[in-house]
C-alpha cells in the first residue's frame, strides 16, 4: 500500500512541480481524508451502542460530534484552499491484464484498471461537502430530539448508524477522484436511503416505499454503471483527471466545440446519455421521480437530509463533475434541460393538489431538482450548483419545520386539519422559520432562493433555442410560490384549529411537557365547523384523550433558527468575488472546477456570461440577465398573492378555503393532479401488470410442464409397485411354492434346451 502511495505520488510529481492545474492537482488536502474516517468512526461507535444496548441519547451525541468534526475538517480545508488537491487514502483496485503473446502472433494489449480510494478536492467538491457535512451536523442535532420517542429501543442507535453511513457514502460520492469510488458512494447512499425510509419497518407503507425507492434507483444505477463501463472501455480509465486530460477525449471535445458532432462516434455520445439515466434516478427526475414522494415515509430528519438537501443532489453533482463529458454529445444537454423543465412543471402541478404537507414539500423538491437539471441543460452549471446550495438550506428548513409540526401534532400532516399553528404557544419559532423557508422557495425578491432560481431562469432565456424551457420554468416559479404559500397560509396562520394524528400514544409520556392536567372542556366533535374560536389557547382540539400539541424543544428550535439565519447569511455570497451578482461566491467555486468552462484552447465558455456565444437569446426583446430579476420577482409575488386570496383572506375554518369554490370550474383536472396524474397507476399498468401476468404464466409452466414431467417419473414406479404388491401374501407356503415352481420352471427350460 505504501509503495502504491509512493507510486501515485511519483506519478503526480511532474504536475506538482509545475504548480499543478485543474487536471493534474498536486498532492495535499489530507485533512479531507478525515471526513470519511470520522463518519466511519461514527458508524462503528453507534454500532457498538446498538450491540451494547445503550438506551440513552449517546448515539446522537456521538454522531453530532463526529459530523461536526467532519464539518470542521471541510471548513479548515476550505479556508486554507489554494488550488485543487489530490489525496490518496489507500490503493484500492489495481488490476492489470493482457500482454501475453497468443500463438497466432501479435500481442494482446496491456490494459489496467486503477481506482484508488483517492479524493479529488476542488472547489466543486468543497461547495458540496460544506453543505453536506454542515447540514448533516445540524440535522443530527435535530434528530436527537425528533427521534427521542425511540430512545428506549434499538431503533435510536440503528437510525444513527445509517445516518453516519449515509454521510460516509455521500463524502465518497462527492470527493472521489474516480468514477468507481463515486459509484461506491452512489450505491452507499442508495442503501442508506433504503434503510432509513424503511426505518419504521413494521409499517407496510414504509417498507413498500423503501423497496420502491431502491428498485427505481436501481434502474438509474444500471445506466450509471453502464456509463462508467463504457468510459473505461473507450478511454481505459475511470479517473476524472486521466479521463478529462485524455488526448482522445480532448479531440472529441474540440470537435464538439467546433459543432462537428458528426465526427464523434455514436458510442462516445452514448456515454453522457447513460450517465444521465443514473442522474435522473438518483435525483428523482421524470420518468424516475416516483420514488421520492413515497420516501417521505421515513423519519422527517431523513427526508430533510437525504431526500431534500443532499442525496438527491448527487445527480446534479454527477452531471456537474462530468460536465465536459456531457458536451461531447449533441443531444445530452438539451435532453437534460427538457427533462428538468418537464419534471419541474409536473411535480409543481402535483404539489398544488396534495394535502399532506410533507408530500407537498417532497414534490417541491422534485420540482426544484428539475430546475437544477434545466440549469445544467442550458449550460449554467453555476446556476444549478448555486441553486443546489441555497435549496439545501431552505428545503432542509422547510422539512424540519414540517417535521416539528408532525412531531408536535402526533403525526398530523393534513393541511385541512391544522390551522393557525404559529399563534399557538411555543410554536412561534417554527412558524417564523417556516415563513423564511417558504419565501425562499417561492423566490421572494432578494432572498437566496430568488437569486439562484433567477440565474437559471435568465440563462434559459439567454441560451438560444431554450426559451420554451424558460417559459415552462417561469410558469413553474409561479406555481411554486402558490403551493408553498398554500401550505403556509393554511397551516401556520389563520384561525386556530388542530386535530391530532394517529400517533397519539406514547408521546405525552415520552416528553413530559408542562401543561398536562389542563382541563379540556371541549366536547369531542366532528372536526369541522368549530375551527373559528380564535383566541382559545388550544383551539378546538380533537379532544381525544386530552391531547395537547407539544411544541418543539431547544434542539429543534436551535436547528431551525440556525438554518433560517443561514438562509439569510448566504445571500451576500451572491455579491462577492469575481462573479458578483451572477452567483458570486458559488460561481467562483464552480468556475474553478471541472464543472466550469472548458479549458483554454477549447475556446468555448461553459457559461453564457463568458460571451462565447455569437448569438444571445432575449426575453421579449430584452436582455434576460437584466430583466429576469424583476420578472421572476413579480411572478413569485403574484403566486403568493393568489395563495393569500384563495387560502387565507376570509378563511374561517381549517378544512375549507376559497379555493374549494374554484374547483368545480376546473372540472376533473384537480382530481387528476391530486392522483399525481395517475403516473403510478400508469407504471403499474405498463410494468407491474405485464410482469404479474408473465410471472403467473411462468408459474403455470413450471407447475404443469416442469413439475409434471418430474412427477410422472415418480408416478410410474409407484403405480407398478401398487400393481404387483398383492403378490406378496406374507404366507410362508406361498413363497416356498413360488420358489419351487420357479426352480422347476428354470429346470424345465434347461432340460428342454439340452434335449
Amino acid at each position, binding site marked *: 500500500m505504501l509503495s502504491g502511495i509512493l507510486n501515485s505520488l511519483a506519478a503526480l510529481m511532474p504536475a506538482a512541480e509545475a504548480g499543478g492545474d485543474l487536471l493534474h492537482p498536486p498532492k495535499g488536502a489530507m485533512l479531507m481524508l478525515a471526513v470519511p474516517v470520522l463518519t466511519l468512526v461514527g458508524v462503528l461507535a453507534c454500532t457498538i451502542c446498538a450491540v451494547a444496548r445503550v438506551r440513552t441519547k449517546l448515539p446522537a451525541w456521538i454522531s453530532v460530534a463526529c459530523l461536526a468534526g467532519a464539518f470542521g475538517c471541510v471548513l479548515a480545508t476550505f479556508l486554507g484552499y489554494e488550488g485543487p488537491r489530490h489525496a490518496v487514502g489507500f490503493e484500492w483496485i489495481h488490476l492489470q491484464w493482457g500482454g501475453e503473446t497468443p500463438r497466432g502472433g501479435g500481442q494482446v494489449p496491456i490494459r489496467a484498471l486503477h481506482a484508488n480510494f483517492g479524493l479529488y478536492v476542488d472547489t466543486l467538491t468543497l461547495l458540496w461537502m460544506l453543505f453536506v457535512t454542515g447540514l448533516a451536523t445540524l440535522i443530527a442535532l435535530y434528530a436527537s430530539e425528533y427521534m427521542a420517542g425511540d430512545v428506549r429501543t434499538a431503533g435510536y442507535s440503528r437510525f444513527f448508524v445509517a445516518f453516519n453511513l449515509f454521510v460516509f457514502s455521500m463524502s465518497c460520492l462527492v470527493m472521489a477522484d474516480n468514477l468507481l469510488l463515486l459509484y461506491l458512494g452512489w450505491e452507499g447512499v442508495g442503501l442508506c436511503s433504503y434503510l432509513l425510509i424503511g426505518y419504521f419497518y413494521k409499517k407496510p407503507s414504509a417498507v413498500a416505499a423503501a423497496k420502491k425507492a431502491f428498485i427505481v434507483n436501481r434502474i438509474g444505477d444500471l445506466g450509471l454503471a453502464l456509463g462508467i463501463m463504457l468510459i473505461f472501455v473507450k478511454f481505459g480509465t475511470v479517473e476524472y483527471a486521466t479521463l478529462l486530460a485524455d488526448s482522445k477525449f480532448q479531440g472529441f471535445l474540440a470537435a464538439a466545440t467546433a459543432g462537428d458532432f458528426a465526427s464523434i462516434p455514436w458510442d462516445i455520445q452514448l456515454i453522457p446519455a447513460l450517465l444521465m439515466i443514473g442522474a435522473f434516478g438518483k435525483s428523482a427526475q421524470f420518468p424516475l421521480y416516483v420514488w421520492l414522494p413515497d420516501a417521505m415515509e421515513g423519519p422527517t430528519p431523513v427526508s430533510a437530509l437525504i431526500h431534500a438537501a443532499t442525496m438527491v443532489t448527487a445527480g446534479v453533482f454527477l452531471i456537474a463533475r462530468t460536465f465536459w463529458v456531457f458536451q461531447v454529445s449533441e443531444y445530452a444537454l438539451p435532453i437534460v434541460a427538457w427533462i428538468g423543465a418537464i419534471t419541474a412543471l409536473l411535480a409543481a402541478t402535483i404539489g398544488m393538489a396534495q394535502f399532506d404537507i410533507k408530500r407537498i414539500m417532497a414534490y417541491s423538491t422534485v420540482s426544484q431538482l428539475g430546475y437544477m437539471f434545466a440549469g445544467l441543460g442550458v449550460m449554467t452549471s453555476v446556476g444549478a450548483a448555486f441553486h443546489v446550495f441555497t435549496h439545501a438550506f431552505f428545503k432542509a428548513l422547510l422539512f424540519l419545520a414540517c417535521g416539528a409540526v408532525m412531531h408536535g401534532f402526533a403525526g398530523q400532516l393534513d393541511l385541512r386539519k391544522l390551522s393557525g399553528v404559529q399563534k399557538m404557544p411555543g410554536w412561534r419559532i417554527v412558524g417564523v422559520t417556516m415563513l423564511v423557508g417558504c419565501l425562499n422557495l417561492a423566490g421572494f425578491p432578494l432572498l437566496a432562493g430568488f437569486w439562484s432560481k433567477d440565474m437559471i431562469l435568465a440563462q434559459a432565456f439567454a441560451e438560444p433555442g431554450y426559451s420554451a424551457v424558460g417559459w415552462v420554468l417561469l410558469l413553474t416559479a409561479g406555481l411554486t410560490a402558490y403551493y408553498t404559500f398554500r401550505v403556509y397560509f393554511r397551516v401556520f396562520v389563520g384561525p386556530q384549529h388542530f386535530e391530532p394524528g394517529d400517533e397519539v400514544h406514547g408521546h405525552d409520556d415520552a416528553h413530559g411537557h408542562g401543561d398536562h392536567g389542563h382541563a379540556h372542556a371541549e366536547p369531542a366533535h366532528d372536526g369541522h365547523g368549530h375551527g373559528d374560536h380564535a383566541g382559545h389557547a388550544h383551539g378546538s382540539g380533537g379532544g381525544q384523550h386530552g391531547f395537547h400539541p407539544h411544541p418543539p424543544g431547544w434542539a429543534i428550535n436551535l436547528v431551525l433558527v440556525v438554518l433560517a439565519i443561514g438562509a439569510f447569511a448566504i445571500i451576500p455570497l451572491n455579491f462577492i468575488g469575481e462573479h458578483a451578482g451572477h452567483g458570486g461566491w458559488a460561481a467562483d467555486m464552480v468556475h474553478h472546477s471541472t464543472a466550469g468552462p472548458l479549458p483554454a484552447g477549447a475556446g468555448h465558455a461553459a457559461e453564457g456570461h463568458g460571451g462565447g456565444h455569437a448569438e444571445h437569446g432575449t426575453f421579449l426583446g430584452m436582455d434576460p440577465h437584466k430583466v429576469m430579476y424583476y420578472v421572476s420577482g413579480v411572478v413569485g409575488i403574484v403566486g403568493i398573492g393568489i395563495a393569500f386570496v384563495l387560502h387565507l383572506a376570509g378563511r374561517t375554518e381549517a378544512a375549507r378555503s376559497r379555493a374549494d369554490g374554484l374547483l368545480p370550474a376546473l372540472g376533473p383536472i384537480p382530481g387528476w393532479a391530486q392522483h399525481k396524474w395517475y403516473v403510478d397507476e400508469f407504471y403499474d399498468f405498463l410494468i407491474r401488470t405485464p410482469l404479474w401476468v408473465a410471472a403467473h404464466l411462468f408459474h403455470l409452466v413450471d407447475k404443469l410442464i416442469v413439475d409434471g414431467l418430474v412427477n410422472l417419473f415418480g408416478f410410474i414406479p409407484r403405480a407398478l409397485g401398487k400393481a404387483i404388491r398383492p403378490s*406378496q401374501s406374507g404366507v410362508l407356503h406361498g413363497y416356498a411354492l413360488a420358489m*419351487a415352481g420357479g426352480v422347476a420352471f428354470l429346470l424345465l427350460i434347461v432340460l428342454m434346451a439340452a434335449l
Partner: protein
Amino acid sequence: MMHLLAQANPPAPMHAVTLGHYLFVSAAMFAIGLIGFVSRRNLIIMFLCTELMFQAAGIALIAFSRFHLNHTGETFVIFVLTVAAAEAAMALALVVLLFRRRESLSGEEWASMKG
C-alpha cells in the same frame, strides 16, 4: 447319461448299486421334503422337511464324491452337518418362541409381511 455313468468304473456286476441309485434316492428325498414343506402347516414338520432336503443334497454330494474318487464332497458334507446341527438347535428354539407367542404351531399364523 449312461455313457457318463459307465466312464469311471470297470464293468459293474448286474444289480450292483450305481451312482444312479444314489441320485434317485437323493432326488426322491428332496422331492418328499419339498412337498412336505409346501403342504404341511406344522412348523416342526416344515422344519423337518427342510432337514430332509438338506440331507438329500448331502447324499448327492457324497455319491458324486465317491464316484469321482475325490474327498472334497465328503469333507463338505461334514461341515454341512455341523452347521445343520447348530441350525437345528436354533430353529427349534425359534419354533418354541413362536409357539409361545401364538399358542399355535401353524405356519399360517405368521403372515404379517403381507404386501
